[in-house]
């Protein structure tokens, strides 16, 4: 049997005396597009922070392709093929769009901390950067400092930095938050494209985006997953209706 791309067992996280994550078990097979939904304060972002190494779980085990990554540092987890984006745009504001993507490319092409390669002469880096820029539709904005891009462009760049290293597992934290309807549609198309052949886990509030993209949905309420199933079944689930969908059915 092939190990799941990502597997959480008995994950708990306490902040002081407050339990934020109260025992999460979740297995996401390779190639799945998985959405995590839930009301505000349910612990979705905390869960992402635990998976990506930003926080350490208080208890439980996280496995990446069967290998234990519990308590590993963010960069170690990233090198093992998991990349994430952030809910609040987290880019390199005074570097150009091109540089932002290129920084994301470097480690995966094994240049590491090299101070003996002239960066402009690295063809593989250039081609890879070019490719990612093209994918996120920012080729014509390459020379612009990232800080002056429009909000939607910055969100695209955020995704670009995330996928630049070629990670197999992508975590996207509210990729369409704050976008207009048209912008969100673009973002969905982009996410569909970049998650092709990869494992995608995303936190999302926009239900149309979730039901459009996800193969499976997990509902997180008060630090626990109350349901994890295919979209139609989630829609029909009474408990979910009551806990979540009912309150935001807009």
């Amino acid at each position, binding site marked *: 049997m092939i190990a799941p791309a990502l597997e959480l067992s008995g994950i708990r996280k306490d902040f002081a005396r407050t339990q934020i994550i109260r025992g999460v078990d979740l297995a996401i097979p390779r190639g799945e597009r998985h959405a995590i939904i839930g009301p505000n304060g349910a612990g979705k972002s905390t869960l992402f922070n635990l998976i*990506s*190494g930003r926080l350490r779980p208080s208890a439980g085990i996280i496995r990446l392709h069967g290998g234990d990554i519990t308590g590993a*540092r*963010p*960069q170690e987890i*990233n*090198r093992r093929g998991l*990349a*994430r984006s*952030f809910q609040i745009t*987290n*880019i*390199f*504001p*005074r*570097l*150009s769009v*091109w*540089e932002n993507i*290129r*920084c*994301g490319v*470097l*480690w*995966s092409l094994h*240049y*590491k*901390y*090299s*101070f*003996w*390669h*002239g*960066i*402009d*002469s*690295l063809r593989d*880096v*250039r081609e890879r950067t070019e490719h990612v820029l093209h994918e996120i539709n920012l080729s014509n904005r*390459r*020379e612009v*400092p990232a*800080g002056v891009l429009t909000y939607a462009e910055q969100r695209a760049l955020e995704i670009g*930095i*995330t996928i*630049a*290293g070629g990670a197999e597992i992508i975590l996207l934290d509210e990729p369409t938050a704050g976008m207009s309807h048209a912008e969100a549609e673009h973002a969905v198309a982009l996410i569909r494209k970049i998650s092709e052949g990869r494992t995608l886990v995303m936190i999302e509030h926009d239900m149309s985006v979730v039901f459009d993209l996800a193969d499976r949905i997990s509902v997180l309420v008060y630090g626990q997953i109350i349901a994890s199933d295919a979209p139609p079944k989630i829609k029909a689930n009474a408990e979910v209706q009551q806990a979540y969908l009912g309150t935001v059915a807009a």
Partner: protein
Amino acid sequence: MTQIAETAGMATPARDRFAMLRRSGIWIVAILLFAGLPLVFRSGSALTMLSLMGIMIIFALSYNMLLGQTGMLSFGHAVYYGLGAFFVVHAMNAIIRARYPIPLPVVPLVGGIAGLVFAIIFGSVSTRRGGTAFAMISLGLAELVASSSLILRGFFGGEEGITTNRTRLFRILDINFGAQIQVYYLIAAWCIVCMIAMYALTRTPFGRMCNAVRENPERVEFIGYSPTIVRFIAFCLSGLFAGVAGGLAAINFEIVNASYVGVQQSGVVLLAAYIGGIGHFVGPVLGAILVTYLQIMLSDVTEIWQLYFGLMFIAVVMFAPGGLAGLLLMHAPLLRARVLHRLAGPYLLLLAAALIAAAGVILVIELGHHLMAKASDGSVMRMFGVSFDTASVSPWLIAATLVAAGALLTRIVWPIATQAWNDAIAAARTGARS
């Protein structure tokens, strides 16, 4: 804005080749400049000043690897400069004693290695955290080394310091480095090599990640890098170049004392880098030249030159955070669009107004200084070629009038200059579009 574009750096193949050509052109100009300057400035004091500028350029650039490139504010960079200098002095004396066939030009390497080794030792502690933690630890380490320089008298030579004689090393081509001009060319050669090396470092994967760490260390962790390791490598390389600069200073002065590792020396390099502009590679070069010049010239003219230094630093922080380089490069698009000349008139007016105000401020400072610090010399002083009585009212009145008039004029001229600037930028933009 221009600052951002400059640090960003873009790359497409054709642009690369063009940029490469232009860059090597700049280096050739720099080499010619270094080679030719002593032909223009022949006096002994000018040569000494040029030598000190070369040393300061290396030191300030090494400092900017931390502050400008990686976003690390160090208050103790003189530690690596000073230790480099001490190791070089001891190495020179050892070479002289044992008659090793080691010529002087390679000796600054000893300083570089010393700087590197101590940066590895101290950096392994101080670079674990960025931001305020790093700044505080750097200050603590600076104090530690400064105080041990007074305790370990054998190595640091106490108050007198350690002396050496650069002419007694192994000679090649019968150059003995007795004359300042020979030392100048030695410093110039090392300066060119270090400048090119430090520039090349900014164009490597490591150099780019330094910028990324400066911008957003947290995000760096999620693209596979450890900001701690990036900071550590930057710190070590910076220590290496600071050590070379210190070694050259030791060769230049033939004496090294505790002030080399002192907090004041750390302050000077911070000032030089910041005044020149930490956002551009050339910034610290300009800053090093200006600060060295002012250090020597101002200290001849006034006893309280450090006060003027402080005022200048405050002015830069408040009004030109991009430093000299930022101010200059702000005008590059205007130059390209050939509209720069439109600013000449308003700028001259602004300059005149500022000079009047500055003259007033200087007069107030000097009057006050004379009255309070040099009362025993009597109340008469000379300034701008005029003698006057500091105890009388009239010089104070003149000073106050100058300050007021200068301030008023600046207020009147400022909107004119701003308007001219906006017009010129607008003209440059439309010109660029059409």
